[in-house]
């Protein structure tokens, strides 16, 4: 009896020993050298795997950083971690990180329940994707916010909340990392990533390209393409009955006057948002 046990231990132990020796030499032969910096850089990254950097995830970004030359490194930026993280990664690599202004997502629609009231009763699924496919939306605006909050679910940082009074989503600029998940999710492409600029931003909160009268029929805060803004600042472009304020326009210089002079309140200046709201209520 004990003979069987001993012989079993010897046979199994011998097989294991041979396999271990073979595996050791195979592992030596096919060894893959991994850059030790990859692991160090990955430890510095936020680990959100959001894809905002354009890579498949944080590991892919770390690999790209570790294998980059100095000029290539300038194009890599983790918007979620921001400048602080990038500076650390740069010191790890011995390079200098590119300086990028922090950005934030803005909603290019002000079609609140008050500005663009419901015209039809929607009983379908509470999803923007679905509502966008089925019809023009509750308010009748073909480009406006559908107010079901797909972006709220999509935001990996919990920066977007539905405002219960207005019915449209609000971006918390302190939590927003400008990863762009909302830009990709919104079926109507209403989000735009714009520089944070210390809280002073001016943008057109409308995406409606219909003619003025039609746009106003559905929403009180629609851009009617009246060109008033382009007279205040020449850089403002009006195309397809819709105004667009480039990010190069100085919000400090023109913001207040653009927002005040917009007859429908479609232009929002974040420092001056109180006056824009007053105008919408009228």
């Amino acid at each position: 009896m004990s003979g069987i046990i001993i012989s079993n231990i010897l046979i199994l132990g011998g097989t294991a020993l041979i396999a271990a020796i073979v595996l050791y030499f195979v592992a030596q032969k096919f060894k893959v050298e991994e850059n030790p910096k990859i692991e160090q850089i990955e430890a510095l990254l936020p680990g959100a795997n959001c894809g905002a950097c354009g890579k498949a995830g944080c590991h892919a970004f770390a690999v790209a950083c570790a294998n980059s030359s100095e000029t290539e490194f300038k194009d890599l930026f983790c918007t979620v971690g921001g400048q602080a993280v990038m500076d650390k990664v740069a010191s790890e690599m011995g390079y200098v990180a590119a300086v990028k202004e922090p950005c934030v997502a803005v909603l290019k629609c002000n079609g609140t329940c008050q500005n663009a009231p419901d015209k039809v009763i929607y009983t379908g699924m509470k999803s923007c994707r679905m509502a966008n496919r089925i019809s023009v939306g509750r308010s009748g605006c073909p480009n406006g916010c559908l107010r079901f909050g797909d972006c709220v679910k999509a935001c990996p940082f919990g920066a977007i909340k539905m405002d219960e009074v207005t019915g449209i989503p609000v971006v918390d600029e302190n939590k927003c990392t400008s990863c762009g998940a909302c830009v990709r999710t919104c079926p109507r492409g209403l989000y735009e990533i714009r520089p944070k600029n210390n809280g002073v931003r001016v943008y057109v909160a409308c995406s409606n390209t219909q003619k003025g009268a039609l746009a106003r029929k559905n929403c009180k805060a629609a851009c009617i393409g009246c060109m008033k803004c382009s007279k205040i600042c020449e850089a403002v472009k009006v195309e397809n009955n819709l105004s667009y304020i480039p990010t190069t326009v100085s919000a400090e210089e023109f913001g207040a006057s653009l927002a005040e002079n917009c007859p429908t309140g479609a232009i929002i200046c974040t420092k001056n948002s109180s006056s824009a709201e007053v105008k919408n209520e009228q």
Partner: protein
Amino acid sequence: MSNKTFHIGGIHPDKHKITTNKPIEDAGLPEIAYIPVKQHIGSPAKILVSKGDKVKVGTLLADADGIVSADVHSSVSGEVLKVEEIEGEFGYLEQMITVKVEGDEWEESIDRSPDIIKEITLSPEEIIAKIREAGIVGMGGAGYPTPIKTTIPEGKKVEYLIINGIECEPYLTADDRLMVEKAEQIIVGAKILNKVLGIQNAIIAVDENKPNAIEVLRKITRSYVGVNVQVMQTKYPQGAEKQLIEAVTGREVPSGKLPVDVGCIVQNVGTVNAIYEAVQKNKPLFERVVTVSGDAAENPSNFMVRVGTPASYLINKVHGNPAEIGKIIFGGPMMGTSAVNINAPITKLSSGILLFKDDHSFKPEETACIRCGKCVDACPVGLRPFAIASQVRDGDYHEMKQLHVLDCIECGSCAYICPARIPLLDYCKLGKYELKKSK
């Protein structure tokens, strides 16, 4: 022996054919007609008229732009008020020609006598040209231009012509009444198609729940050679093109192929009637039968409606009480879409308007899938709707394609049968829409 039907899936919804014995009424003329220039699959027609032009009934308003397109004719006589974008069925803007109705003056070339012209004198090429000039499209709902369908590609041979008189959607009776009242026209239309396609025999397929139509058609087909009536066992969605071919001939149309690849051509009875009127009477397609029904309609009926009539005009006609109406559906209850704009015009493809009380309308209150597999059993294409739904939720296009969501015929059997009230049809439609868009 029971009648033929298709073999995979299918359901038996309640019929509710409450208007089956209501004769087709003339809906009359609206004050203003809104005629969309795109009432078909393909490119919109090129507009030929402008503001202030006087038009008659049957005047060409817009010309087919390219091969996959169709002519649009005026359905009323009067003055063109404007040509601009107006809110359509889904609330999106569509190019429409607005005509203010003045009198009812028809083009002289249209033969308005009630006599039936049985003799077919034109050659197949001339007949196809007539069909093209009349702007005929598939009136079953797809809106595929008929001239393309009747022109057989090189190297293909047609063995079966199936005239689709199934009308499997509950409530709708437009095709049913058309078969009862215009039976002889449809039969002559079938003979015209026989000549075009170069075949000897046309089959008119009718569901067994239409005894009146079957009786009338059987009586008249006795005096015609080459047109037969085939009675089919009732099952939804038998009126779908590929399901009907399988039911009648036993041939299966492969995924991504056309019926003509298995030697079959299917035409709706409405289309065949329009072909008769175009070829024998020179009448373009500008009116069609529409069923206005539902439990919120006080006086449901079938109407002969001019294209461009606002839906609200017909709703007033059946004395739909606006306070009682909970949901308005354009089309049938299974495949139709709920109305966003009730002033949207009737097009060549509108088969019905249904008015439902609030407690009768379907509102998805989605609960968890219990994996009962009823949707898989019901799907006439053999798909797995529950699996498609979860992939659509995740937005996984690759998996959606693997599950063949593009083969979905959007019949709604899965959503009808689902005990968890999951709007499976909506998921499938969304999947198709996003997959096509992502290409």
